[in-house]
């Protein structure tokens, strides 16, 4: 079965729904003849505001729904598709609700935070549309755990073989065995690089150091070098893998807190408006 993106879920059902909502809102907005000028306090303003607020609550509820594996209310795929498209339609509904009246106040803050949430969501959609392919291609048949174990296995093999090599080489090899790390800091995880990786350094240095060797030692050195090359290749793939995972995750560190902040600004906006009705 062909892979179906959440964007085309159920023959673009939610795209159609979102378009319908947006076009209908825009049409009523154009037809509407407010007492002074369009803003959130006309009957249309209240209507769009109510739709927008309910949409926001429903969109935030997705964070709960996606963890409810047992529920039979729609599929997770359908929910995500609706989340994406209705979140986009929210941009139209809320913009029309403002009547393009913006200022330095809590009302505009709510609008701006909402836009940030929606745009971070767009970025998430983009990430989820592009990164998984790359991730799969990078992993091949392996898993991250598998890669790490392969590295560990290689380490063991290298350690055994390198024991009888000259000290100078052993030092280089040992630094790879004892100092190589993956992840551990945000920068290393997010960039997928480790500028001072001892294994990469060993791979660079070993041919030069090994030039003077001969006989069995040279052969052994060559074997160790081959293993280090393999280790380095696996390390690079593993680092790319955690980088892809980090990219899949990072936008949520904005999307989710901003969504919660949006709940606060939205409440402040709604309550203050009616407090000073």
């Amino acid at each position: 079965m062909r892979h179906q993106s959440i964007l085309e879920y159920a023959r673009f059902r939610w795209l159609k729904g979102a378009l319908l909502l947006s076009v209908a809102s825009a049409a009523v907005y154009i037809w509407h003849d407010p007492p002074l000028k369009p803003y959130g306090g006309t009957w249309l303003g209240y209507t769009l505001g109510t739709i927008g607020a309910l949409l926001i609550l429903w969109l935030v509820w997705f964070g709960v729904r996606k963890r409810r594996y047992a529920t039979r209310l729609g599929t997770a795929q359908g929910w995500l598709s609706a989340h994406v498209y209705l979140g986009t339609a929210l941009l139209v509904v809320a913009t029309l609700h403002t009547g393009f009246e913006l200022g330095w106040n809590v009302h505009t803050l709510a609008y701006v935070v909402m836009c940030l949430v929606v745009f971070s969501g767009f970025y998430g959609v983009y990430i989820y549309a592009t990164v998984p392919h790359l991730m799969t291609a990078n992993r091949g048949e392996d898993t991250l755990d598998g890669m790490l174990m392969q590295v560990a296995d290689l380490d063991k093999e290298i350690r055994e073989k390198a024991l009888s090599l000259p000290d100078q080489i052993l030092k280089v090899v040992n630094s790879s065995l004892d100092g190589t790390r993956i992840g551990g800091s945000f920068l290393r995880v997010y960039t997928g690089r480790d500028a001072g990786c001892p294994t990469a350094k060993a791979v660079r240095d070993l041919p030069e150091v090994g030039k003077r060797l001969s006989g069995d030692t040279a052969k052994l050195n060559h074997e160790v070098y081959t293993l280090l090359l393999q280790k380095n290749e696996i390390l690079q793939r593993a680092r790319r893998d955690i980088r892809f995972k980090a990219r899949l995750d990072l936008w949520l560190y904005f999307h989710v807190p901003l969504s919660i902040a949006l709940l606060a600004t939205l409440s402040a906006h709604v309550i203050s408006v009616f407090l000073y009705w």
Partner: protein
Amino acid sequence: MKLLVITQSRNRAGRTVQVKKEVNADWIRVGRAASSEVLLADPRVALNQGLILDRDGPVYTEGEVGNLTSTTKRAVRSVRLNPGSAVDVGPYRITVLDTPEGYSGAITVELVRPQEDVAPEFMARANKLTLRSLHLPKRWVALGLFAIIAVVFFLLPAGRVLDLPWKGEQSIAMASDRFWNPGPVMLAHQPIELKCEACHEEAFVQVKDGSCLECHQKIGHHVGQDMQPAALFQGTRCAECHRDHKGVKTTHRDDDRFCVECHKDVRGRANGAQSQNVSDFEKDHPAFRLSIPVDKGVKRVRMGSGPIEESSNLIFPHEVHLDPKGVRHPDKDKVKLDCAACHQPDASKRTFEPVTMQKHCQECHRLEFEPAVTKRQVPHGLPGDAITVVNEFYANLALNGVKDSFEKAFGVPGEGLLRRVGQPSDAQRQNALALAGKKASQVSEELFEVRVCRTCHAVLKQDGPDGKPVWNVAKIRANNTWMPHARFDHKSHAQSKCADCHDVAKSKRSQDVAMPKVESCRECHAGSQPSEKKVTSNCLLCHGFHEQQHPWDPGFKPKGKTRVAQGAAGDR
């Protein structure tokens, strides 16, 4: 090929456990994939790690073997599985046993490097691989943002209205409640912009009309409140038309929509409405109504339904006064008059000062009663005052007059009684009194009925209580404000000539009304929709919504300044 696969492992007690399995296939797959015949379930093994093929005996091969048209990508390693030999496949070791009867071969598969054995120190250096494992805060950031926003943008400012512990702490609330202000208030409201409670008196209750009326005390209702149509506006809040915080210029929209909503069928809406339906100044506006003073009060007459005459009781032909050749002047030769000679803008420049006898007429129309002798004039105003002045003048002349004046005035030889030599006799005194009285009556009659008053006024001679005649001068009802509720500004029309709207050059009678028709206005003014070379004009350009009382209210009394001249002949 028929292969016996013995999977060997150790149970918890450390005892060796063997599982035997017979595999019968041409290609025997070795790998992590579940479909592999020789399953090596360890992440360090590839899904399809290798194959065991029959090449005159079992051969283990790994890597891509390729075919005739493609090269291999990876090196191929092939190991012939001879009994007694062993192959390491990842952490597993495949040991070849002696071939049993009926089989092509037999192997033992054993995990020789279990996962837990593997380099724990490297695993320790590779345990923080995800953002979550780095403890990148998501929940705390969310809760922190929520709290900051709730406090700064809600709880602090709410202290101004809600009973919170910091209620009354102006500095706290003021610092942040401007964040609640949705937009600038109109200029006139700016002094109270930061005083939210001036309008928003009660929390969660819409702004009440009382807040508006506290300052706008004199704002008029659109129709009299005791009128039935007031019910049309029942429950209508000020804020339904007036929205503040929408910019500094205005709180309402200046278009016709609200007016037309009712006035397109005003008689259907309100029984007894006297105004006519209107929907647009250019396309659908009735003829103007003029307010004209009559015997009692003012009547309103719609133009176009027949000739309209003003009954000012004044005799005044515009034509004569605007004669291009000029009008006679008592001292000069001839004077040319223009409109501004009599109609001078008032201080507001919107309308005109009332025309008065003293300022505008008397320079030519002098009230001299004995020009042969004196330039004195009778006072303008009450007829009795004028008669008194005349009587006194001739009495004095009869008493004190020098010979020249005496003879010119009375037409008989002589001089004032007191100027004659010797004591006047009774007969002489009676004579002088009679002379003065007769002359005064004659001059008065001439003054009122022929020469002076009659020029401009309707004069009626009556017998007074003492038998002497009195003259009644008809009260002047000169109109000054024809459309008292139209917001017409003469100043903003100053580029036009007076005659463009008021055609009086040929008017011979004061009864002629020279107010422009709606068609004249339409020469320059379009309706609510823009029209080429015309001024777009909505209702509110000329009409006010909040008049003190609406003109069609029967209780309405037009209140133009000096509309009707007061006094017997007007004070002017």
